[in-house]
């Protein structure tokens, strides 16, 4: 009726060798350079696929948003076609490290722990990481939310902020992406969610007439364009690109278009996050 136990064991052993044997062949995606990208005629940029107004897919099936517009400018300046690669929040860094994308422009907050794994450029966008909940819930400090079920996108800045403040526990519910996180709030599966200042736009679309409001601000976040550590040339090119679009008004226009606000005053340095590759 069943495989004999000897055969089962033998098959298991072979399977284990097959699986762990691959560990020795971890792909070592090589460094990316401006020249290589120009030669390929295409740059692969990782973006968010469902996080308006940063990156989402509109009714016509086209990518649109703040990150998308800046990414299109990158393509324009380099004179290459842009290939948009949508990624889930937890897949952003792995996609970059394994060479699935050349750059990551997916609302990547600039934090020291991430700066150990990837290279950030100068900031080109910013937002606030906040806690959102119904007006009925009284939350003035994080302790007030201790007994509430809080949704976060797994591995996102708000996951880190809330886990650090409240400690890890079953009340912190981690979802795959921002869309499921918001859906969890709308359907009442959680009482509050960690999000950012642009969540409200999407929540109003998903649930018109809701009473969700900003309760707490965890931190102000700056976003940079990520490359792999050691992509010195590409990083230098991106920094001069960001300076250029900041000074010629193109970034200002993108801020007005998507966030309805003037371009923020970007910081010149961030603790633990170097802007230039070594």
């Amino acid at each position, binding site marked *: 009726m069943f495989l004999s136990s000897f055969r*089962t064991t033998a098959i298991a052993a072979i399977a284990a060798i097959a699986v762990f044997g691959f560990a020795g062949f971890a792909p070592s995606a090589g460094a990316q350079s401006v020249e290589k990208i120009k030669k390929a005629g295409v740059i692969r940029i990782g973006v968010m696929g469902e996080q308006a107004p940063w990156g989402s897919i509109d009714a016509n099936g086209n990518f649109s948003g703040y990150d998308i517009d800046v990414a299109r400018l990158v393509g324009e300046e380099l004179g290459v076609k842009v290939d948009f690669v949508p990624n889930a929040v937890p897949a952003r860094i792995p996609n970059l490290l394994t060479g699935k994308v050349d750059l990551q422009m997916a609302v990547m907050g600039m934090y020291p722990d991430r700066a150990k794994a990837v290279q950030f450029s100068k900031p080109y966008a910013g937002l606030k990481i906040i806690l959102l909940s119904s007006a009925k819930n009284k939350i003035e400090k994080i302790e007030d939310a201790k007994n509430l079920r809080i949704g976060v996108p797994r591995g996102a800045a708000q996951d880190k902020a809330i886990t650090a403040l409240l400690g890890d526990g079953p009340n912190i519910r981690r979802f795959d992406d921002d869309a499921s996180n918001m859906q969890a709030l709308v359907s009442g599966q959680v009482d509050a969610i960690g999000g950012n200042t642009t969540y409200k736009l999407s929540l109003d679309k998903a649930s018109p007439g809701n009473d969700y409001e900003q309760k707490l601000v965890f931190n102000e976040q700056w976003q940079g364009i990520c490359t792999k550590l050691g992509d010195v040339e590409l990083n230098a090119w991106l920094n001069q690109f960001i300076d250029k679009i900041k000074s010629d008004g193109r970034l200002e226009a993108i801020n007005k278009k998507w966030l309805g606000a003037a371009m923020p005053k970007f910081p010149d340095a961030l603790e633990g996050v170097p802007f230039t590759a070594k």
Partner: protein
Amino acid sequence: MTLDFSVVADVWRALLGGALGTMFLASSGMALAMLIGVLGVWLLRGQMLLLSFLVGAFVEVIRNTPFLVQIYFVFFALPLVGIRLNPTATAIIALGLNGGAYAIEIIRGGVESIPKGQTEAGLALGLHKNEVFRFIILKPALRAIYPSLSSQFILLTLTTAICTSISAYELTSVGQRIEAETFRSFEAYFTLTGIYLVISLLTMWFLAAIGRRAFDYPQR
């Protein structure tokens, strides 16, 4: 790229917890699936046409839609009609319904393989209709289809990984957190692969042991 498995070793407690979570979801899901499977086949063969039609419809709907959509439906859509379940309960119900639909098809196949004469012999010996179903039809049918039922249940065990999407606590969610915190995808997912392999083999062995005990009466 150098590999550093110490990041995984540091969190073995969390991994063990995740593995237990996965085994809990899988075994609860299997128990529910088995219940749904047997009950479903009993209803299918019953006299109530409406019920057997509903069972048939249930099997077709579940077997022809993706599990991810089913679990999202239970988690995100049912609250709109007032049924709100926590992630663990959602996962068990979705796994049970999914596994149950496949179990119905498998068990039905076994039941149909029992020759009609066997049923008639049971009735001729004065057994009640339900006793005939239980002892004369179901038991030999289960013995015949037990291997395919077991592999379906192994598949169910591996399907638990999808439950991470609704924030249920299981092994994949732990692995994804390790990855999110350390950015060590290879180490995290290679370790997960190994643990899943062990869980599957344990499940296989456990189901085989149950099979030997439950069906050890002589063939003839």
